């Protein structure tokens, strides 16, 4: 199936229904991920990145719903699949790991059983085979003494170990796409590096594509080949991750990059205050007209306040949504 991207999102709009009216929590979201590719979605809390991921696996729940656009997995429209068809994709072809490894595991079930259940559910294995496979899965995420650990309950494991178990569960059936929603936010920095390394290596070995969602631009750029930056429900810039650091185009991305502390900057530039982006993210019900970043943008002009910018393709690849992009 060469040529057809693994997942393709086109002009996706996600509605939030607050009872009296519908507002778009995300709109005009488009991106593609090929097989084995790593793609990052970055943005502040509430910018719409997590609900975009939920939409991909058909799990938006009231008051959120897909208000328009198309999501295709291997060319098939996910919204048109039956409930059973969607369920067949979830866990088997598309898997997801979550921010909170503390709460994402069932507290009253041994971790081995939770891994084994995936083989029973999606691969039709017997429990005996599945339990054996669970030990192997646990070994593959480098949990020491896996044959003993399978009998442990989640609360007996550390946060890092739990996230390893989550990765083992998510990758159990060899999915084509792994969605990682803030996979390391709840972990220590050292453990974070280990988990990211593990996730990246396992996915590279198996040819699993990664959609990584995070507010941490540095982390995403480290893992992903391409990065999309979301602001207030729209993707404002999509670039190769090296480019986005070297030459960010959108003023918001520039702001993000400038607000990252850098090792050695004090020696090079002297003692300078870390830059911040002035203002706050607008509320979902009160997005400004025109470019949604205009109230916080230093370069904003009249056109920014009246007309929403279209996407401009960049020469180096990727696109930006700004009237005055660099």
């Amino acid at each position, binding site marked *: 199936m060469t040529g057809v991207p693994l997942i393709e999102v086109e002009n996706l709009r996600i509605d939030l229904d607050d009872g009296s009216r519908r507002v778009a929590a995300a709109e005009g979201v488009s991106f593609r991920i090929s097989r084995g590719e790593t793609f990052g979605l970055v943005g502040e809390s509430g910018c719409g990145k997590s609900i975009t991921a939920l939409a991909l696996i058909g799990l938006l729940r009231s008051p959120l719903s897909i208000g328009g656009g198309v999501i295709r997995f291997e060319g098939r429209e996910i919204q048109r699949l039956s409930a059973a068809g969607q369920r067949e994709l979830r866990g*088997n072809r598309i*898997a997801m790991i979550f921010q909170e490894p*503390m*709460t994402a595991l069932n*507290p009253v079930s041994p971790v081995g059983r939770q891994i084994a259940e995936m083989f029973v559910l999606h691969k039709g294995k017997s429990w005996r085979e599945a339990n054996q496979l669970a030990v192997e899965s646990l070994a593959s995420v480098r949990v020491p003494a896996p044959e003993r650990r399978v009998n442990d*309950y989640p609360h007996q494991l550390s946060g890092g170990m739990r996230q390893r178990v989550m990765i083992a*569960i998510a990758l159990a059936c060899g999915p084509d796409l792994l969605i990682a929603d803030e996979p390391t936010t709840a972990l220590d920095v050292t453990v974070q590096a280990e988990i990211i390394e593990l996730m990246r290596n396992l996915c590279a070995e198996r040819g699993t594509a990664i959609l990584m969602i995070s507010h941490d631009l540095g982390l995403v750029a480290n893992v992903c080949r391409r990065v999309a930056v979301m602001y207030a429900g729209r993707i404002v810039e999509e670039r190769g991750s090296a480019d986005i650091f070297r030459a960010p185009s959108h003023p918001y991305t520039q702001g993000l990059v400038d607000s990252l502390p850098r090792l050695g900057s004090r020696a090079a530039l002297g003692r300078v205050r870390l830059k911040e982006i002035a203002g706050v993210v607008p509320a979902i019900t009160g997005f400004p007209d025109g470019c949604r970043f205009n109230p916080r943008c230093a370069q904003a002009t009249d056109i920014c306040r009246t007309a929403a910018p279209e996407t401009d393709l960049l020469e180096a690849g990727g696109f930006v949504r700004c009237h005055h992009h660099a």
Partner: protein
Amino acid sequence: MKLRANLVIGGSLFALAIIVGLLAPWLAHTDPVMDANLMNAEEPPSWTWWFGTDGQGRDIYSRVLYGARVSLTVGIVSQLINSVIGVALGLSAGYFGGWWDDVVNALTNLMLAIPSLIFALAIMAVLGPGLTSLLIALGLTNWSFTCRLARASALSLRNQGYVQAATVLGYGDLRIMVTQLLPNMLGPIVVIGTLGMGSAVLSEAALSFLGLGVRPPFPSWGSMLSEARDQITTAPWLSLFPGLAIFLTVLGLNLLGDGLRDILDPHSRSRRT
């Protein structure tokens, strides 16, 4: 490994009641129904008649042993029916929500509004007295608390990360309810269940007392109490021993429920190993 006192005492009392019921034919001194002898009527407790005898000269000790069979059967079976109905309705209502939740809620409110004993009486009136109708009547009338509990647990559990994770991993609704929600609410459900068994034993006593339970002359603790009420001043042992049996069984079940709650929590389970 430290066992909790309430678990040991409660479990022992309940086990004792079950053993007594099972072994009644071997432990009893006389046949509880046939061995009536007016020569021995209303004997107080003694070495010959451990618990005394009743107005027909039947051995109270033997009748209490046999009575355990009825009381425990009713307690266990009717509560199992209640638990299954309550969990099935409450769990699905909390998980699915929507119109099904409304229906179950209305039904639960209806059940709570009608005193369960009156409702059981009505069912007994239709089915007629007897053990089977007793089981059905008590099994259909006391599920509302279990249902409320299961619904409330399902409502809070369904937003837990692991339940959402299970959805994301492709679990179907039934599998989520059985593997994710049910085990996590089992602790309180079991506790309510053992408490419910205790109250079912009491309800059996009440219904038998009213003459709707097991038909005389076959003994149940409730019917024995019922028959003994006229002689409570002249022959108090007639009501004392069946009453004590009910009291100890219900106490045992309540303590057992408490103890079970502690070990059903995996946090405390691992601490002990």
